[in-house]
């Protein structure tokens, strides 16, 4: 898991630059850490499948309007003729699945489930990515500062992490969801609510990654290349960002990939509980919450959002595990 490779002979201490591996008559091209990781990752078929699924999901989310215009119906459009008026259940087998409605329709409203899943992906992925980004930036910067400077700075930041970790996040998010005004900070409507969710998830989760970064920095700052940089007269910020940060990229990448699925789940949980974006904007968690009242009538209404969450989270976890193995020199 530690970033710098301790394998004798492959002295890739400072990351990006390439060094010779072994000193033979025929010069063997050295490989950077990234190249080695990529090579290993490519051999990990499970992780590659995860990666491809993620790529497809992201593309589907970005091109949702286009896909929906080809294969579906606008996500908020009601199709009452597609549901049985007396009980509200979709007409036809498997919740009204057909070529016209690929995943069937929502009970009661007859809205196209396929479109809603695709549009739901946008919200889920957007919030998860942005929240993770916020988390990682905060965690990395504060973790590095704590680990690098030590002393009272470390104490303050570490205690801050403890406080944040003890924070009842879900309760706080629920309470906040009820009191969000229509307009605040120059934002309004869904933009405001998405930003707020990103903030809540990102701002309160940074200590997890912060602690890891702090530990890594603590060990990195004692290394020879740091001493070397210092003896050449490098200042603190140069050492931090030019020498230490590149060595942290591997753990950062791995933890972000593993953080995204947990953020997707958290967003789904919040939407499930009714905090989150406003109807009729679809979210996976919100669809699941609706489906609870209808699982007998239309099991596919619960199946598809559940599957969407499941597949997304699984894909990110597989890729994250693969990345971790790829960057880990001890793994074979």
């Amino acid at each position: 898991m530690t970033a710098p490779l301790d394998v004798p002979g492959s002295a890739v201490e400072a990351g990006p630059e390439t060094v010779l591996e072994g000193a033979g008559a025929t010069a063997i091209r050295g490989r950077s850490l990234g190249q080695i990781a990529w090579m290993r990752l490519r051999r990990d078929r499970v992780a590659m499948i995860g990666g491809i699924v993620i790529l497809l999901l992201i593309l589907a989310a970005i091109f949702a309007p286009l896909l929906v215009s080809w294969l579906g119906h606008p996500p908020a459009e009601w199709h009452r003729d597609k549901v049985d008026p007396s009980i509200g259940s979709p007409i036809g087998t498997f919740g009204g699945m057909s070529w016209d409605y690929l995943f069937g329709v929502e009970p009661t409203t007859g809205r196209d489930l396929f479109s809603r899943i695709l549009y739901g992906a946008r919200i889920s992925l957007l919030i998860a990515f942005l929240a993770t980004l916020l988390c990682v930036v905060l965690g990395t910067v504060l973790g590095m500062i704590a680990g690098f400077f030590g002393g009272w700075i470390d104490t303050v930041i570490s205690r801050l992490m403890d406080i944040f970790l003890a924070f009842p996040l879900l309760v706080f998010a629920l309470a906040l969801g009820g009191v969000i005004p229509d307009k605040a900070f120059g934002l309004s409507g869904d933009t405001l609510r998405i930003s707020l969710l990103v903030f809540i998830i990102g701002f309160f989760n940074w200590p997890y990654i912060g602690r890891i970064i702090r530990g890594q920095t603590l060990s990195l700052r004692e290394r020879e290349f740091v001493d070397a940089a210092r003896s050449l007269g490098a200042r603190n910020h140069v050492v931090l960002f030019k020498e230490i940060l590149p060595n942290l990229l591997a753990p950062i990448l791995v933890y972000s990939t593993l953080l995204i699925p947990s953020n997707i789940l958290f967003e789904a949980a919040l939407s499930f509980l009714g905090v989150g974006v406003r109807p009729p904007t679809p979210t996976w968690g919100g669809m699941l919450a609706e489906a609870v009242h209808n699982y007998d009538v239309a099991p596919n209404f619960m199946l598809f959002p559940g599957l969407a969450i499941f597949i997304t989270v699984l894909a990110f976890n597989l890729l994250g595990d693969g990345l971790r193995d790829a960057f880990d020199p001890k793994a074979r």
Partner: protein
Amino acid sequence: MTAALALVVSACGGGGGGKKSSAGNAEAPASQFNAGVTQIVNPSDKVGGTLHMGMPGDFDSVDPGDMYYGYAWNFARLYTRALTMFKPVPGEEGLQLVGDLAEDLGKSSDGGKTWTYKLRKGVKFEDGTPVTSKDVKYGVARSLDKEVLPSGPTYFNDWLDVGSYTGPYKMKGKLDDLKAIETPDDQTIVFHLKKAYGGFDYFAMLPQTAPVPEAKDTGSKYKEHPVATGPYMFKAHELGKRIELVKNPNWDPATDPNRKQLNDSVEVLLGQNEDDLDQRLLSGKIDVKVNSTGVAANARKTVLTEDKRKQYSDSAPIDRTWFTNLNSDVPPLDNIHCRKAVLYAADRSAIQGVYGGPEAGGDIALSLMPAKMTGYQKIDPYGVEATPTGNVDKAREELKACGQPNGFSTTISFRNERSAEKQTAEALQQSLARVGIKLEVKGFPQGDYFKLYAGKPDFAKKNGLGLMVYGWGADYPEGFGFFQQIVDSRVIRSAGNTNLGVKDPEIDKLIDQAAGEQDATKRNAIWAQVDAKVMDDAFILPYVWAHGLFYRPPTLKNVFVSQNWGMYEFLTLSTQ
């Protein structure tokens, strides 16, 4: 990830489960859908056995002085006796009041300001002490203290001439200070009102008039063991979990022509998972479900689509209308034509679907007053019967008259926890968009909907809540019990409102007229006028007259839907 997995798995399991269980009950007697609405199903005089009741939540309280839900009032009559009661019979006769603890209905004097009741002789509490008019007075007096007993209706607080009396908890031993109720002898009780009210017998039906022995009153803890006067009494009450009633040995059928004591005991399981409870009801392990709307969404399909099930169910109209308030504080809805545009453009049939369709949800509402209420007169000012999906042309005309030919934008609020209300808001968003009225949909927590949001005029105005999704059920099936709290502008307070913005002095005048009217027929005619006026003013967009879809296992005896409660009459139920 585990959560998502579990949901997927349960989705598959749930989908299959309903169908398999329908194979049973092959030998059960045949019945007919809706048979219980008009007649007694499975009449029987056999005694014995336990009546098993089950409930998704809990009663607001089982203390007769502290309850407001219809099912709680229905249940309370198993162990308490109020002054009057609705006749426990099927059909319209069930809307009639008869004497219960009182020999007969009240005698009014002083133009309807004084009401006198004579108590039956020989009625005893469960411990054998005779019931006197003082116990009735004490029961009403304690219900006046809304700090100790907050849940019940406030009719007695509002109408009795209570003066400075604040209830027996703050004014211990000063029951005589309550001059509004007199007890000249042990069998007579006299109520003095501030204003004349012709329908006081309806107040006398409230469980608040059930006698409570002062010595046994423990205030807010009285609900642990309310002292019985009815055929059953509390044996056990595990709060929030279970209630067990057994025969009351001191109940004398000679004093009670309206009740029987067929069951050996009655058990109520509280706090049950709703879907699980419905399954047990369908399999006959539970005899009756205690709630106001019957089986929940998941069981509805089983009940409505399988004839084997459907024959044992009843779609019963309830005294409840689902509607949306139009807020005249929020421009351009201050203009009546803009409000009328909303009433014309709304697709009521979509909302009917949202509430569960015609059998489980209810009928499309033509006006605010539910059609099954006493005194209802059919009006249809917006032509809803002909165009239930909305009249777009008329809506455009009204928009023009309002000076907003291209429509306008406003916000619609709903209660987060209520999925039907959320979908109603979405349905309105869709149907009003047809004429250019754009709605922003905004949910609020149900617990604070009236205290902090829609029911707080300042908040609603400031946040531009032009439309507020709402619904109201009558306290009793007479105009006053339905209208007064939602259309009388004088009940509007700074927060916690039940009237979300109906403000018309003419309506207030009509309400006063109706309340003071002693003749029931004339009174009902005025309530019909109130209904018409509210619709004319376009303060309210009604869309569904609610139905409940109730299931009676084939083994349940003496079942019928009470027209008054809009659910099964609990008093007559038995299992043998």
